[in-house]
């Protein structure tokens, strides 16, 4: 368990999430892929806080934890809004295909 291991894990998680975001057509599935990418970022925060950054700088454990806590709060707010939109869209259109949601397209 090292900084490199955590960073590689987070990179792999981010890449998987990016693949999902590009291939999924269902709105909820795309949101879940985005959650994967957010999680990868959070892992990076904690890894740097625990092991320190480059050039032997020691990490700031408290700042790392607090940044992640704030990110979790922001993500909760974002997901609440996004899922409200999902439900509203489903009520109006009866499907959640991203390709057909071009109501704001000029």
């Amino acid at each position, binding site marked *: 368990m090292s900084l490199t291991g955590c960073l590689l894990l987070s990179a792999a998680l981010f890449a998987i999430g990016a693949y999902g975001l590009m291939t999924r057509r269902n709105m909820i599935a795309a949101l879940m892929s985005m959650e994967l990418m957010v999680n990868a970022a959070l*892992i990076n925060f904690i890894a740097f806080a625990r092991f320190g950054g480059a050039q032997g700088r020691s990490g700031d454990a408290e700042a790392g934890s*607090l940044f992640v806590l704030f990110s979790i709060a922001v993500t909760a*707010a974002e997901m609440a*809004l996004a*899922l409200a939109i999902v439900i509203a869209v489903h009520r109006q259109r009866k499907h959640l295909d991203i390709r057909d949601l071009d109501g704001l397209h000029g």
Partner: protein
Amino acid sequence: MRDSFFYALCAVLLGFAGLTVLARNLFRAALALLGVLLCTAVLFLLLQAELVALAQVMVYIGGVMIFVLYAVLLTSELGGKMPSPTPLKAAVGVAVAAVMLAFMADLALRVGHGEPIGGTREAEAMDGDPAALAMDKLLESIRRPVVKPVGDGTNIASLKSLGARLLDPQGFLVPFELISVLLLAAMVGAIAVARHGGAVSQTAGGGGAARGKGQGGSA
């Protein structure tokens, strides 16, 4: 022992992540995402960030994931299968993901070996610039821990120091207050969006149906 546990955890986490992205059934994908979040919480525990692990379990798994599961159950039938992506799109997705992975893995390896990533040249250029120096001083004041961790030398945030840092005006008090406003705004917005959309579709679809029925009855 600990290393092998870490690698096993990584394997399980990436497996769940792959299932989240590839599963054809939406409900199964949501359950796999739950596994990913749980594994991440265990990883946080392993990295000695207990409070974050707790918040991950309570907020993500207890709050967000329940909400996602509700949305899945409300909007799609349980046994339904989503169409798999076309080969072209899957290929493009794999290519983009691979390029991202290559760049980030390169960065990760360089950081892991202690190489400086940028930074040095900027530090040299910063010498003469008063604005940059002021910014650096500001960042330094934010960075300064207010309460020293209990066991020094180890890089672990105790709950006490976390709380002091969170409510310290020099620390994270302002974002802490702002995030409460943001959460309130998001809550109100979510209710407004979900209710408003429902009201519109009901008056558009339900009202029309009722009127049609009424006419049919009178005729």
